[in-house]
């Protein structure tokens, strides 16, 4: 419960409809896309302009009340999980596209604008916004920046951090700061990169300038079937190793293909151990040349079948399964747990084989559907929370996978963020010297630690508590490996 004097101070800076304190009103905010964790906030604020955000943050700063920013609430790592003694600051009402400059190929948008809405608005100019998380119909651009979101097209066009030019944010002190510039490069420290992916720990984003790209004249996707999971993993490396950077390069294993086929009826090869989707985009000539090369590489890598989309409808159909993989898996299993680790591409065959073995050992089916070109895994562990022991085994299985990702030189989160979910994993991935730098950065922005506390970056004390879980026999596995 928040102090009564504090809530009445809040009531003076926002209209009555923008301050929710009754349990029935705050309940919808108790969790985000990671429903394993829930907490009721002391209050929910729904400001609709920057001045209100400034006022709210000043009050919270003065009263030392923690603030959790929230966009569309689609985070998969608990980034928007409330704090009982704090407020949730929803940016849902910041939902306007302020300007599109087709010559500079930029759009200025408010943080609550949906990812897909930007591309829809830019389509009139033949442009689009490249990062496309699977939740793009719902997730907001402010959340994308806070989590440095990725998506299918990030292999070729980069992550959110590569596609944002400028961010305007309010610090916990109420100061308004701009990061980046409308031009290519901004002098001084790259604070824009720092706030991108900072999970709401450094500032509250109120305005974003994103880059737009010209829509490719043509896109074509090849669907390749493999008898063997490791071969498919090796094929991914072969495509990239041939110097081809496809518009998208995604993999689904048999478990995933079967789940989505029942859902979208795209005529996927159901016997294949794995399916690769490889997209070429550009001018018709470029696409023809690149697609020919892709087909050669896929066949040489052991594909048993390669189909190429013949028209836009077919291309979208091939992709429909990939885009709908999560809901499709949701239909066949009462619960699933999505893991998000990234590994060097060359390690794909080994890691996929290991996950398969563990799935048998744990007795939990695991569907793999992921951004193979980036080496960004999304194993979906299928379980039933009502079955005794399932939840615990699922979490243990997930931890194993993430430890393996670190072992092969990867990272515990490719694009979903750390949030509350992976806070312990941070201690395994980063050494104290590195964590100290993170904490130093945090202090520079938010000395009192009021913005989204308990997420993203663990304190050293917290790591010491977690130590038992992740350090085996008092030693960190493979201390010589780069950890970052």
């Amino acid at each position, binding site marked *: 419960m928040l102090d009564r004097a504090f809530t009445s101070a809040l009531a003076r800076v926002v209209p009555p409809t923008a301050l929710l304190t009754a349990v029935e009103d705050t309940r919808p905010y108790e969790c985000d896309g990671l429903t394993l964790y829930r907490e009721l906030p002391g209050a929910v604020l729904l400001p609709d302009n920057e001045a209100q955000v400034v006022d709210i943050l000043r009050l919270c700063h003065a009263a030392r009340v923690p603030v959790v920013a929230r966009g569309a609430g689609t985070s998969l790592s608990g980034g928007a999980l409330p704090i009982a003694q704090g407020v949730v600051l929803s940016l849902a009402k910041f939902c306007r596209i302020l300007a599109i400059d087709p010559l500079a190929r930029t759009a200025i948008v408010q943080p609550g604008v949906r990812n897909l809405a930007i591309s829809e608005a830019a389509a009139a100019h033949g442009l689009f916004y490249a990062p496309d998380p699977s939740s793009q119909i719902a997730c907001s651009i402010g959340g994308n920046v806070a989590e440095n979101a990725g998506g299918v097209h990030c292999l070729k066009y980069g992550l959110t951090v590569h596609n944002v030019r400028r961010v305007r944010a309010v610090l916990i002190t109420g100061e308004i700061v*701009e990061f980046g510039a409308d031009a290519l490069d901004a002098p001084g420290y790259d604070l824009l990169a*720092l706030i991108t992916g900072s999970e709401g720990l450094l500032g509250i984003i109120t305005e974003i300038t994103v880059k737009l790209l010209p829509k490719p004249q043509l896109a074509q996707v090849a669907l390749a079937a493999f008898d063997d999971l490791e071969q498919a993993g090796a094929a991914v490396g072969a495509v990239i190793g041939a110097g081809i950077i496809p518009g998208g390069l995604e993999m689904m294993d048999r478990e995933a293909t079967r789940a989505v086929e029942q859902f979208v009826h795209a005529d996927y090869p159901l016997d294949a151990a794995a399916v690769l989707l490889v997209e070429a985009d550009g001018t018709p000539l470029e696409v023809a040349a690149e697609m020919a090369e892709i087909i050669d590489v896929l066949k040489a890598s052991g594909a048993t079948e390669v189909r190429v989309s013949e028209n836009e409808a077919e291309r979208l159909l091939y992709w429909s399964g990939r885009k709908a993989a999560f809901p499709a898996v949701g239909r066949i299993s009462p619960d699933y747990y999505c893991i998000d680790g990234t590994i060097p591409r060359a390690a794909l065959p080994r890691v996929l084989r290991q996950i398969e073995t563990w799935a048998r050992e744990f007795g939990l089916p695991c569907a793999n559907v992921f951004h193979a070109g980036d080496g960004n895994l999304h194993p979906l562990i299928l379980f039933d929370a009502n079955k005794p022991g399932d939840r615990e085994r699922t979490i243990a299985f997930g931890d194993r996978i993430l430890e393996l990702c670190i072992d092969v030189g990867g990272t515990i989160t490719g694009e979903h963020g750390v949030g509350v979910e992976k806070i312990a994993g941070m201690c395994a991935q980063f050494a104290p*010297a590195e964590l100290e730098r993170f904490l130093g950065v945090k202090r520079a922005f938010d000395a009192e630690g009021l913005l989204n506390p308990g997420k993203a970056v663990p304190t050293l004390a917290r790591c010491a508590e977690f130590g038992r879980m992740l350090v085996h026999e008092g030693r960190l596995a493979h201390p010589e490996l780069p950890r970052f």
Partner: protein
Amino acid sequence: MTTAATTTRARPQPKAIESLTRRLHDDYGDRAVTTQAVREQHSHGEGLADAALPDVVVFPHTNDEVAAIVRVCHAARIPVIAFGVGTSLEGHVAALYGGVCLDFSQMNRMLEVNDADLDCRVQAGVTREQLNAELKGTGLFFPIDPGANATIGGMASTRASGTNAVRYGTMRENVLGLTVVTADGRIVKTGGRARKSSAGYDLTRLLVGSEGTLGIITEVQLRLYGLPEAISAAVCQFPDLKSAVDTVIVAMQLGIPVARIELLDDVQMDACIRYSQLTEFAAKPTLFFEFHGSEAGVREQAETIESLAADHGGSRFQWATKPEDRSRLWKARHNAYYAALALAPGKQGFATDACVPISRLTDCVLETQADVVQTGLIAPIVGHVGDGNFHLVVLFDPASSDERAKAEALAARVGMRAIGMGGTCTGEHGVGMHKLDALVAEHGDAVTLMQAVKRALDPHDILNPGKTVPP
């Protein structure tokens, strides 16, 4: 031009330097050098003469040696300045408060090349040309090309870009991870071989472009690219500057993946014709293009651009498809600075570095050219216009304080004009010691945060003091 911000900081006590030097001599023998000639050589980059001598220059071989030296300096509160090959243009390496210069020329090993992952890891002292020579035979290359044969560490520290940033991005996009020695002498790894990570703050990008003020970069993990199947270069000449710039804007809007687009105005073209014997061309506003891709793709890109150029009154393309013709062309472009200097022997020059959103490029270039004409100075325009970045090489007579003042005023106006158009006064050369005021003008409140970040990562201000952020 602005001078380094005023500060109360003083050089270390002679006694402290003496004991440090003795210790470095003991530990590193003749790799710790205090001779006047070597200190002078390490006191400045290129660009305006702003030399400040370090007290001692050390040539480390390993990360551990760098860390050990920094630890000693940290304990004694003595400045440490990282030095690549000294090609920076904004006074990044001048030892304003003395201290230890770390010369990375002997940390120049390739550590790994991962063909299948299109990445590699190098020590900070590897130069750009060395890297590409060592990649020969792998079918891969590293595209970032600031002109000078700079070290990878130096390029990462200044967030360098270059003629083909329009296609391949800058160091910001191409550094995957770093090994860094922190201000207290600890070795930290950031980023890594995974293509994406949303774990923790983005220290890699924070350090890229931090000009040695937040940590000393000792190793760099770089993104590599497959050598394109076909490369060709073309030259197109225009009746006036506006037509040339407008052609670029339309090409960019269409998203044609040109590998390089360079603009040279008539004065610069004249200079290059004389200096690099490009006698087949006229002294007119000119665009140099380079196309990378498949045979068909390159042809298609070139045809599209040629017809765009023709719409704007551009000449037919003059082609350079043979490697030696291409390199002659790009060499002429890289030597543009020296060609400009040769226009007026005896004069000195410095380069401005404005960058604007591409939709404002025509306005900015034309206003700038008119401004140059007004001043009566010689200041040719050359630039990577595909990303809105262009340079003036401003020439002035070092003996005439009047002309120098005029030149500096012109440069200041160029910077402010770019900022006024939503751009920046430093597209690729960095802040160093010369652009601290402009940083404040552009970034306002964010500068306070930058200072806070600096204090958090280097509380005693020993890493390249006096640079990048005002004290």
